[in-house]
């Protein structure tokens, strides 16, 4: 939308008109226009032969359309005189004269005349004409009922509305409302004169939605276009990470880099101080998971059992096992009422907290399940089922979907809105998949190093607009999710960074864990941020190694 800002001749004309408008809205009379070209416009017939003239540096905006939506928004804002002046001065009228007649007839309640006009507008779609007539006649019907002219209303229904032969269910409702007016609640039932005017205005708005936009311009069209542009600017802004960034219309939006956490706030060499040592597992612990209420922990021993612990006391509350089989991974249901675990017989088991097994799903071709996640609505379970495939199991519909990759999948991570999956591959790429309706590969992120170990990545930032990952070159990598561009590669660790976790509530904080036995908390430079509990819900961290 470069129209007003550029310095091209075409826009200069527009600029002057808007300046003139400002003068006009102050109440002064219309003066002879200064720029000669405006005089030409005055001489033209009211209906410009649109399409020839364009505005803007790219030449894609038709001038007639541009002026019309500006006039429309002037009227919407309540600046009737300005709108009228614009129409007069530009010679471009907002609506054709027949539409103006139509609108007036509707607002004044000349129903039969308005329908006649409707047929003369030149609409090609039969259905549109019928639907519009239906709406107008409905209003006529209700206004009769309101004046207690029941027989007139009935006559309208029988002789005018029903013969249209559309919307029979609405006809039923209308007939019922003859005898019980309260039954048919409609926002357009007018009671007094003032609200009658309002309900007729509403009728006009609904007619507007029915008619093609070239005939009657939709409400708030200009606002919609501007909002669209702002949305695109925000999406393209690679460093957009703050809610309170206001977007102005005067310049394209662009955040500075300073909103991305890039400054090591705290380096914990000995980890956060040890609270409890949870012993009981006989085998190495492969995964850990916090309960949704943060009071309990679920741990899984490699090919062993799953244990549930109380986080404050350190006691083991339950042990989940299956005779002759070993568990490989574990997780919580979103409501914290049951848990699920991957089993080495290629199945997934679900348990009540008290140890009762609820369900057991057996897959066709599943491998050792090392990553197991569940969507926050509890509907889908996601796990790696083959070297190169991820299974998405819909629990209710019992439908299985598969994400197939060419490379071995090492780990994955689910977005908070359950719509995207981040998949880490052997070949040092991170793939972003959309999992909502159709499974689609959306983006790829590259740059980090991964050759020997499992490195985990995650979503993060405001509206999860960023992707972060650990790397074997000891840097923390951050990409902009939408564009795929690498924004930051943060130095600081002295060993491979195994896993990262972006604070779910503070978009300016990130935690990373490394083989150098430290955990780093990253934040914004020169900003004091509260040390929040970074092990939030559902973070899995592995014991180093594969």
């Amino acid at each position: 939308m470069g129209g007003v800002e550029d310095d091209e001749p075409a826009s200069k004309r527009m600029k002057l008109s808007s300046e003139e408008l400002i003068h006009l809205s102050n109440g002064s009379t219309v003066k002879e226009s200064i720029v000669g070209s405006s005089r030409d416009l005055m001489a033209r017939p009211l209906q410009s032969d649109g399409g020839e003239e364009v505005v803007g540096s790219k030449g894609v905006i038709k001038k007639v359309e541009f002026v019309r939506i500006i006039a429309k928004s002037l009227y919407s804002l309540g600046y009737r005189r300005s709108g009228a002046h614009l129409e007069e001065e530009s010679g471009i009228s907002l609506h054709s004269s027949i539409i103006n007649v139509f609108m007036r007839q509707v607002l004044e309640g000349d129903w039969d005349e308005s329908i006649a006009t409707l047929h003369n507008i030149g609409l090609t779609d039969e259905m549109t004409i019928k639907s519009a007539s239906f709406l107008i006649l409905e209003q006529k019907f209700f206004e009769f009922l309101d004046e207690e002219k029941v027989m007139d209303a009935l006559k309208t229904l029988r002789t005018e509305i029903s013969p249209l032969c559309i919307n029979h269910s609405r006809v039923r409702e209308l007939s019922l409302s003859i005898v019980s007016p309260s039954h048919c609640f409609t926002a357009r039932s007018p009671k007094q004169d003032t609200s009658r005017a309002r309900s007729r205005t509403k009728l006009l708005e609904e007619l507007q939605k029915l008619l093609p936009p070239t005939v009657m311009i939709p409400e708030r069209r200009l606002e919609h276009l501007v909002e669209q542009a702002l949305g695109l600017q925000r999406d393209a802004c690679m460093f957009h990470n703050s809610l309170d960034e206001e977007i102005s219309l005067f310049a394209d939006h662009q955040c500075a880099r300073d909103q991305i956490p890039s400054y090591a706030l705290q380096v914990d060499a000995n980890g956060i101080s040890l609270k409890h040592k949870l012993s009981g597992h006989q085998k190495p612990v492969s995964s850990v998971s916090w309960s949704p209420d943060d009071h309990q922990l679920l741990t899984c021993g490699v090919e062993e059992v799953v244990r549930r612990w109380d986080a404050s006391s350190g006691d083991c509350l339950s042990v989940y096992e299956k005779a002759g089989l070993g568990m490989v991974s574990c997780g919580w249901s979103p409501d914290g009422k049951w848990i699920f675990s991957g089993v080495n017989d290629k199945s997934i088991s679900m348990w009540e907290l008290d140890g009762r097994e609820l369900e057991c799903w057996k897959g066709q071709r599943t491998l050792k399940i090392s990553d197991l996640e569940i969507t926050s609505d509890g509907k889908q379970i996601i796990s790696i089922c083959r070297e190169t495939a991820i299974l998405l199991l819909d629990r209710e519909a019992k439908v299985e979907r598969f994400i197939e990759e060419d490379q071995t999948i090492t780990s994955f991570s689910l977005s908070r809105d359950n719509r995207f999956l981040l998949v880490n591959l052997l070949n040092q790429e991170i793939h972003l998949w959309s999992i909502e309706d159709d499974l689609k590969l959306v983006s790829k992120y590259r740059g980090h190093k991964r050759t020997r170990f499992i490195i985990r990545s995650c979503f993060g930032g405001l509206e999860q607009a960023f992707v972060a990952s650990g790397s074997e070159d000891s840097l923390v990598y951050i990409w902009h999710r939408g564009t795929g561009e690498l924004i930051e590669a943060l130095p600081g660790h002295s060993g491979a960074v195994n896993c990262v976790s972006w604070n779910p509530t503070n978009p300016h904080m990130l935690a990373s864990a490394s083989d150098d036995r430290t955990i780093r908390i990253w934040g914004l430079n020169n900003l004091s941020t509260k040390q929040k509990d970074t092990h939030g819900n559902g973070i899995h961290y592995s014991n180093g190694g594969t």
Partner: protein
Amino acid sequence: MSYLVHNCFKETVESFIACTGMKQPSDYLEDMEKRKRIYQFALEGNALKAIELTEQLATNLLEKNKDLHFDLLSLHFVELVCSRKCTEALEFAQMQLTPFGKEQKYVEKLEDFMALLAYEEPEKSPMFHLLSLEYRQHVAESLNRAIL
């Protein structure tokens, strides 16, 4: 035997009894005759007469059986619509049928019937089945069964 009684086959019942010597309550013949007349009226669409006779034969039956009552009244409504007496039909509906509309389960039925008013040729409307003989038969059968 009960089939015969149910369907008011009077002569057949009499000869049946004569042949088999079965015992029957004394006024069953009278009842049967009355029911037969009620059934006929309902079938013709003369619902008001049917209602009147039903009240005589079994008072409070219609009060207890609201569905039936509604169906019978609707028959009369349909008659009025068919004879194109729109104003009367409307008034009748307002007075007799709409009170039922307070209960949700009647609202849809009420809608069906009121919709008949919306069309100048109800036979061609989506609700034309309400005008048919089958519907009247259905209502008459229910009435008959209820009396028994």
